[in-house]
């Protein structure tokens, strides 16, 4: 061991160059471990460069501007196979986000309902919810995904499509939903909605401030209704914006109009939602159980109705227990969306995988997948941590 290296950081108290000085020992350990790891990485790197040379693969992200030539069935933005790899990868990221965001919302709703059902006084409902949680948690997600996909492919073809509600068709082509024909004027109505929501928030703050002064609670919801629904409706009427619904209908063997959610997308969404909901249900149940019954009773003693006690006393305390594990479930759902590759839904992993098979740019492809998922994971944790900090108990 070369001891001259260790002297670079000047110690405040002279470090003894002997094994009995813990600081010296710590420094030696770190140098040894870092050196070992750096050595292994350097060795792997040298091998990689050599292997890439012999296979005539050039490194770098230059391939991104080349033509992808890869067909993508589900694309949120305009995409043709003659577009670049970069555009294909963006389509993939959007597909991942499309399944993750909607999956998180649906799983939260379903999970909360099942978690509450498990605490129900109705024995049958509670038992069924428990069976749901136990079964779904103990089966691999990939198996569930494949089973959902098989079930969806077993649906009748377009002509005999299931037709549960007007305008909604379910066939082996996927789920067909009606849409609203989008016009530029609709953006103004949406803007009115946003303005209405912002105004509601300010009205609510003012009402709360006045309640703090005189103790009189004020009704906010009529104003909110007027601002969020009435104002945009008024804008729409004043501008004369048409709201044409694009109903899907069967023409020949296929559907025209509406929007088609592919069986791959629906299967992935169903599998992710139902699987994650089982975990969320347990989190919600634990959160509600963590608030002692004394809190309910104290709310009752203050004259609060059960709903108000839930909203003002129990829920804020339960949320503090619920939010941190819920965050990791959201992260899990997002990461699990990468199973899409098994059924051929083209998310970022699937498209990056095709890219690296076509170009041989294995390192860049894997690096892109990791970068995208790290970015998504970090933004979810960041926003959930921010929310968690907001609702955290203000301790003195």
């Amino acid at each position, binding site marked *: 061991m070369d001891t001259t290296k260790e002297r670079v950081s000047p110690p405040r108290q002279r470090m003894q160059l002997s094994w009995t000085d813990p600081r010296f020992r710590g420094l030696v350990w770190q140098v040894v471990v870092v050196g070992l790891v750096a050595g292994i990485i350097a060795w792997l790197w040298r*091998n990689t460069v050599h*292997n890439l040379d012999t296979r005539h693969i050039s490194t770098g992200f230059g391939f991104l501007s080349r033509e992808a030539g890869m067909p993508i069935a589900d694309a949120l933005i305009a995409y043709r196979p003659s577009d670049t790899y970069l555009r294909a990868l963006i389509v993939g990221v959007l597909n991942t986000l499309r399944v993750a965001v909607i999956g998180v919302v649906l799983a939260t709703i379903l999970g909360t309902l099942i978690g509450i059902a498990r605490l129900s006084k*109705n024995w049958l409902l509670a038992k069924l919810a428990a069976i749901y949680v136990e079964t779904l948690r103990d*089966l691999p997600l990939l198996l569930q995904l*494949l*089973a959902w996909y*098989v079930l969806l492919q077993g649906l009748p073809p377009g002509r005999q499509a299931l037709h549960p509600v007007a305008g909604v068709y379910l066939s082996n082509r996927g789920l067909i939903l009606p849409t609203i024909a989008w016009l530029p004027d609709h953006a103004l109505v949406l803007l009115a909605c946003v303005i209405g929501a912002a105004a509601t928030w300010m009205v609510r703050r003012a009402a709360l401030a006045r309640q703090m002064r005189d103790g009189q609670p004020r009704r906010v919801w009529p104003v909110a209704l007027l601002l969020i629904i009435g104002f945009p409706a008024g804008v729409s009427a004043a501008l004369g914006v048409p709201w044409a619904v694009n109903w899907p209908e069967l023409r020949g063997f296929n559907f025209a109009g509406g929007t088609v959610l592919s069986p791959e997308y629906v299967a992935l969404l169903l599998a992710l939602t139902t699987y994650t909901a089982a975990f969320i249900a347990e989190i919600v149940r634990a959160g509600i159980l963590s608030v002692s019954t004394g809190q309910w009773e104290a709310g009752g003693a203050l004259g609060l109705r059960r709903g108000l006690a839930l909203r003002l006393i129990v829920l804020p305390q339960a949320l503090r227990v619920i939010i941190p594990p819920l965050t990791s479930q959201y992260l899990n759902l997002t990461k699990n969306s990468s199973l899409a590759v*098994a059924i051929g839904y083209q998310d970022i992993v699937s498209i990056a995988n095709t890219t690296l098979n076509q170009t041989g740019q294995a390192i860049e492809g894997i690096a892109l997948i990791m970068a995208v998922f790290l970015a998504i994971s970090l933004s979810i944790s960041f926003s959930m941590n921010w929310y968690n900090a907001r609702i955290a108990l203000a301790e003195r």
Partner: protein
Amino acid sequence: MSDTARIAIGTSVAGVPEAAPRGPRAAPTGLFGWVRANLFSSWLSGAITLILLFLILRAFLGILQWGFLNAIWWVPDSQTQACRALRGVGACWAVVTEKHRFILFGTYPFEEQWRPALAILIFIGLFAASAMRRFWRKELILIWLGALTAIGVLMWGGVLGLSFVPQERWGGLAVTLILATFGLAFGFPLGTVVALGRRSNLPAIKAMCVMYVELIRGVPLVSLLFMASVMFPLFLPDGINIDKLLRAQVAIILFAGAYLAEVVRGGLQALPKGQAEGADALGLSYWQKTALIVLPQALRLVIPPLVNTFIGFFKDTSLVLIIGIFDLLTAAKTAIVEPAWQGFSLEVYIVVGIIYFAFCFAMSRYSQRLETELNRSTRH
């Protein structure tokens, strides 16, 4: 409240006619009372019960018809016309009867399939022994080493008169168990070291451990498996070619290590600081302190979450399907590729699901029981 007291209160209110003395409502007893209290306590509850009963009955009848009454259990020589004639009104369990050896053992040589079968039994015995608290001592490590060696000998062969079977021919449940168990056996020590490193006060070591854990936990297992299948060959010098199964196993170990590190770190953090300080006061070195005082207590605290993490890995090993390794799920999916059997995947998935469920459910029940037991013994 005694009767006289109640009457005294009743008469003390002037002008109010005395109501009949009211006791608490009699608690419902017997079957009728139970049904009333738990299924029909209110109008809403009663309506929910009736709707659920209706749905359960319909589902039950549907499953009975599809799975049993209309099902076909056996067909001669892959002649699946009878199954096809059902057109989905009944299950074709014949696919399982025909392919069960393939689903369980993959392409392992047919007459040698007792070897993976025995390996599966050793695995189950190993789990059962590890679950019993009277085996929780140092000798357990020796048992594990012995069992894993025996499984290796059984699967590979080439010694003791067993014929050699290359890894490419392994498959089915044995591979699933190998991936999960070796993942734990190597991932657990790795995770423990990383967890200790993350709590170390040596900045360089701490930074490396944090980076490892956060990087692995931030990306999906699928991407690690892809990395194992396409990047590992690039990392190695010419001439050295490691097997696909081993590469996937390395990815799973790295993945397991990061998650287990966080579980172990939870235990290290939950341990009162006084324990480490006590060890310091006795003049123990870092390694003595860690091995004799800190780890035994910290690990005991995290056994239930460790079991839960293990359930997760057991399920996650199915992801190797994506890179084409022959585990239980891949074998099941491959079993129905043959044209005669195409279209009966649901039956195969149900059977494979039951196998996965049996393992995971046993572990999760065990973890729950353990949690209550450990809580009971620590609560005084």
